[in-house]
């Protein structure tokens, strides 16, 4: 039997003990304290009888004890005070229309939030519907919130227990990731850091990882972190293709930040370093078109249309731009 299997067995066994513990547990309750926490001290500023140190609160606490000793239930004790002070003495919101709304509002917000979140997923996810409330009172709320939230948790748990269709699994050795796509950013950054100075890893291999990390920052719009990584790549003996990719993207970041001249220069350098960088060429076209310099963009566009590495779905856009550039 493997170690993993033993672990599962131990988990199951201990879980049984825990369930036993939960079943035999008897929550020791102090009914007097519960009542005192539900009654406000009449002369204090928003404190309960339990919290207040005032003389009257002490007497009320004693009265609660007297009533409970005389056989009153918690509810009857609360009613005893309500009959003398009015409903205002109770610190529990009454279960009128507003009270029920108050108790169910968190539930409604949670349900709304779940719906909004589900729409964030790229492929439309399975529908999750919240159960309509059937019971009222405090227990309803507790059950309700737990239900909605647990649906969310169960959903998340369920979807990770389903193995992904593509991509190889991570082996658990975090310093040797086999699939850069499925590693978290921190792990990637950490891995890169741990390989620095390692004679077995070439700077070019490291640059590959840095570019993968930078691409994530770049896609996420965190241009500052991306620029940092690109700069490091340019400073660590990159291959021409790596240098070109870094330069091209730095150029685009510069352009987005409004520094068109510097952007143009960087993109030009990217193409000089590695002529096959279609992305940099495409960025340069966008920069030129933005400045109404269509005539300069024409040769670039023609080169792009001939480039087999350019995605097919860009072709119509490129053709349209070529039309515009010629005009």
């Amino acid at each position, binding site marked *: 039997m493997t170690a993993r299997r033993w672990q599962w067995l131990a988990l199951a066994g*201990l879980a049984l003990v825990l369930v036993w513990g939960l079943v035999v547990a008897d929550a020791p309750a102090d009914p007097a304290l519960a009542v005192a926490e539900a009654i*406000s001290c009449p002369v204090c500023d*928003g404190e309960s009888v339990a*919290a207040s140190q005032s003389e009257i609160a*002490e007497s009320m606490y004693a009265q609660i004890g007297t009533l409970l000793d005389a056989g009153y239930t918690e509810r009857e004790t609360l009613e005893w005070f309500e009959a003398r002070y009015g409903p205002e003495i109770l610190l529990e919101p009454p279960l009128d229309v507003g009270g029920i709304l108050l108790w169910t509002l968190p539930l409604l917000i949670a349900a709304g*939030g779940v719906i909004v979140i589900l729409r964030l997923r*790229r492929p439309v996810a399975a529908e999750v519907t919240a159960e309509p409330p059937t019971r009222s009172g405090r227990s309803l709320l507790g059950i309700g919130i737990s239900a909605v939230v647990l649906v969310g*948790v169960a959903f998340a748990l369920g979807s990770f227990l389903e193995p992904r269709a593509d991509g190889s699994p991570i082996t658990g050795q975090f310093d040797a990731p086999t699939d850069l796509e499925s590693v978290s950013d921190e792990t990637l*950054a950490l891995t890169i850091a741990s390989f*620095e100075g390692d004679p077995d890893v070439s700077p070019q291999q490291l640059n590959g990882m840095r570019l993968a990390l930078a691409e994530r920052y770049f896609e996420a719009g965190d241009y500052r972190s991306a620029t940092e990584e690109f700069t490091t790549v340019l400073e660590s003996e990159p291959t021409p293709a790596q240098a070109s990719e870094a330069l091209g993207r730095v150029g685009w970041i510069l352009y987005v930040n409004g520094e068109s001249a510097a952007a143009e220069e960087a993109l030009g350098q990217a193409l000089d370093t590695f002529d096959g960088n279609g992305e940099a060429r495409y960025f340069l076209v966008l920069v030129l078109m933005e400045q109404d310099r269509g005539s300069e963009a024409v040769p670039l566009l023609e080169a792009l249309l001939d480039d087999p590495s350019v995605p097919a779905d860009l072709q119509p856009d490129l053709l349209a731009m070529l039309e515009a550039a010629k005009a």
Partner: protein
Amino acid sequence: MIAVLGTVAVLVALAGAIWLAVAGLSAVSGRTVPSLRTPAGLLFGGSVAGMGLLEVGLLTDDFSIAYIANHSSTSTPLLFKFASAWGALEGSILLWGLVLGLLAWLLQRRVGEGDRLGTVALGVIGVVSVFFFGMMASVANPFEVCTSAGTVGCLESSAWPFAGSAAPGEGRGPNPLLQNHILMAIHPPMLYLGYVGLTAPFAFAISALLLAQPGAAWAARTRRWTLAAWAFLTVGILLGGWWSYEVLGWGGYWGWDPVENASFLPWLTATAFLHSVVVQLRRGVLQSWNFVLVIATFALTIFGTFLTRSGSITSVHSFTQSAVGPLLLGFFVLVVVAGLGLFASRAHLMAERPRVESFASREGAILLNNLLMTVWTATVLVGTVYPILVEALTGSTIGIGAGFFEATSGPIALVLLLAIGVGQVTPWKASNRDVMIERLLVPALIAVAAGALAAILGLRDRAALVVLVLAVFAATPPIVLLVRQAAARPESLGSGMRLLVMNDRGYWGGMLSHLGVAVLALGIAGSAGMAIHADDITLPIDEPVPVAGHVIEYQSGFTDTDDQRRVVGANIEVTRSSATVGTARPALQDYGTQVIATPGVLTGPVRDVFIVLRSIDSAQVVVDVSVFPLQWMVWVGGFLVAAGGAWSFTARRSRREVAA
């Protein structure tokens, strides 16, 4: 003299604020704005001078200033004279202004020419400062001179600094509750550093919206400010609870008082923001949501201040009703309408495409965290304002006690613990079963084993058992991950762990905070869920009495009298299973106007023994005895939460070191 100089200082700061606001906001139209060093300097300098002058006045007992005459006295101990500068309304607003000035000054140093985002953000801080210094120059002037002196304290005052001054011979002194413990001197400044620090992300968010630059730049630039502010806010809330426990003697640290809620609400939304901003920076999602969170957080800090200052909610924290209330309410409405309105008008720029590949990922876990935090915020907010709504609509006054908040917060907190356990080690983008089993099986094993062991050892409190299992489950995955990663490195285990934690401070700081949350949860489950109370126990002198699992004995009394108060207390020896726990010294402090029962607390690794004196004479004392299991975990856990924030705060620099 101090009144004149102080008024000038406030006006100088106000002028700086107006200048900062006008010049900063003019960059929206594309105008190039020269350095904002001068207006920020005026704002900061004016506020420092104002606070300095108020302190000088307090320390020299200058009762010609109404604030000092009414909130300090010659016999107030030095530390509390110093702390009186923020012990009452006007001074607390001056402190707020001082922290704002500091923020403006620090931010200004990072804003270069041509940095439109930063320039407009400084303008927004200018607007906020205009509001606070405007209040000081009008309805909440800390430098009003006393024009009619009573025997003690000032009866009438004037904002005109040259009005004929009449200094009373003695001041009224601070509220006895506020001069009882050193924590009272540091709790408000910490809270304000948190509140005001949260102005930074707000200002940058508004700036980004004004400039129609809804990218991640604003969030990336303010991440460290948010972390620092959040850590201060955490410490501030924690110290408030600690003070309440050590001084108020009702045996608790959190009562769901409206003002406590008011500080908790922005903490919740700021915590949600700290998580969701990472998702935006890493994955480009939640762009709009982060704007909403930041605006809500700032609005909630103003709303909380309004609740404290307006007298519209009764609470142990409230200052007396004043004209500040309507102004704060107006400013709150302005923040909501202008902030969210601006967001709504820019929402079309943020039509983000759905791009979460799988909810079984770090971003999925953070979405769950945000959902829970939002629901929690909404619940606490609605519970806090509900009584006011009911009164406005029906005229009947009702209260909402801790019961509602506990019943709603409990389940939310439990699911959050579970989400922390799973979420913190889930990879970004997408996870798979093997990785998650790898990372979670051992923690689950440890957690269930801890629960099973506790059950076998006789823990019979169901809620405590559940919290124990979930808290251990939340605390262990990062530790297991750290050990495994370090073991796979060439260095020794210890230095490997150290290197990992030093190199990725952003991540491990977060893990430290999560560990703190787990410890805090255990502390709350123990101290609140399993407390034992025994009230009105009469202890004849020198006679051991068994109470709540301990034997306590009234051994002697003590008295202590100074100018301020008369203290009468008892030395009560506490033993447990015939081992001495210590001598508790509960006391009654009589300030003439008010008697405060200061508890005697004996803190231990397993439980606190907490004794409050009810009455005392030479023959016997009457005491309330409480036993709070695991109380120290509340303080240590809360401190770890803040420490994690501080550790993450140092992250940016470490990344550069990694790159270099």
